[in-house]
């Protein structure tokens, strides 16, 4: 371990970072992605209404954490690859999308700081799926995933309160409560809570303002 080591956590000087609270949760009829909306450069909030939930395909979305530039570039490239894939093979699976993300982050781990959660609704399997791809480029299929600096504060909460086969409303509440706590205790997270709900019937976007989530 003392020989070659790469500093994967390092942000370049003056770089914009998503010191973030993000999560994605599978439920009965699909999957919900959630994120705070704060982007920082040092102590300054460069954007307080950031959208960290990014579309890769109609029903494959991702939550971005780490460097804003790196994660945007990676998401753009994955979107491009999946467009080509679609034209040849049809709609890609969530696993395929996660694999493309993995290849990019794993092969370029020395240059990227990107922690991504890929989540989507598979119309063939009729279910939601979540893949967590942390800094080194490994892939972890999970029932739910949390990531970003704020996630450290909600491991216990999520572990205690997540239940399999929740309905949509229960899951929305779970994500809202979890992110509310993450934002409360993490100084690098804040702003509004954004949600994307992926189900059989399509895509639904929700937004919650501080007044609504602060005193849950």
């Amino acid at each position, binding site marked *: 371990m003392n020989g070659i080591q790469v500093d994967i956590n390092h942000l370049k000087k003056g*770089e*914009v970072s998503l010191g973030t609270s993000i999560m994605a949760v599978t439920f009965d009829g699909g999957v919900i992605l959630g994120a705070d909306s704060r982007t920082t450069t040092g102590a300054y909030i*460069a954007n307080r209404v950031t959208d960290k939930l990014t579309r890769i395909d109609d029903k494959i979305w991702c939550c971005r954490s780490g*460097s*804003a*530039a*790196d994660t*945007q*570039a990676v998401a*753009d490239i994955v979107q491009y690859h999946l467009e080509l894939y679609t034209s040849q093979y049809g709609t890609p699976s969530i696993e395929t999308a996660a694999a493309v993300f993995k290849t990019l982050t794993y092969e370029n781990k020395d240059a990227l700081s990107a922690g991504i959660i890929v989540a989507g609704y598979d119309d063939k399997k009729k279910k939601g799926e979540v893949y967590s791809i942390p800094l080194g480029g490994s892939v972890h299929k999970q029932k739910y995933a949390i990531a970003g600096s704020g996630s450290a504060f909600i491991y216990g909460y999520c572990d205690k309160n997540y239940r399999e086969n929740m309905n949509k409303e229960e899951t929305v509440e779970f994500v809202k409560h979890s992110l509310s706590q993450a934002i409360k205790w993490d100084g690098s997270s804040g702003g509004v809570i954004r949600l994307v709900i992926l189900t059989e019937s399509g895509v639904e976007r929700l937004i919650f303002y501080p007044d609504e989530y602060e005193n849950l």
Partner: protein
Amino acid sequence: MAGLSFDNYQRNAFLASKTHSNLPKATSTGTTIVGVKFHNGVVIAADTRSTQGPIVADKNCAKLHRISPRIWCAGAGTAADTEAVTQLIGSNVELHSLYAKRQPRVVTALQMLKQHLFKYQGHIGAYLIVAGTDPTGAHLFSVQAHGSTDVGFYLSLGSGSLAAMAVLESNWKEDLSKEEAIKLASDAIQAGIWNDLGSGSNVDLCVMETGKDAEYLRNYITPNVREAKQKSYKFERGTTAVLKEKIIDICEVEEEQVLVV
């Protein structure tokens, strides 16, 4: 090879470590720039001070750049980079619109900018507010040197961005009129001019309304005109010493008398 040449990078780094001489530094536009959307358009504005360290290099430089007739951007960061990257993307946007037989779009310029900047990993020190109108409507974005982008109804960038954002956060409201947006943008720039030492002099402005030509208002406000000097410093002719005089014949001159009959 295409792209920028990094041939001298190692040599300069070596020279900088070996000698104690100060290598020349690029002029940075310690700047205030803002962008504000209004009901059927968008306005961007900038101050006009350019600095080299604590010295004012240019009292009235132009930080508003044209990418296409209806897409403009305001630049902060390294002056040369904002200028070069804006011209490069401007050219490519024009070629692209000719090829596609379509009006250039703001998102096209934005995507080209972010991909170019990401490729150079922040070494191209361009921080831009990109705005404009296209068949899709009015748009306002910002791009950072590392290649990240943001969307917003009001944005500010540069060393004076905190002063400007203070004004934007306290006075912005939904559905501004064109006149209100112009007032808000220029007030935000003035906050930078007065309170940020990296910004100063005048306010430049560009208004882009959907379906109309962009209006570039150079020196829209000039609140920093210098007062008259106390004294004239005109020197009497001959005050400067002539130390040496030398006349060089650059051609042979032949003289002859011509008799007029």
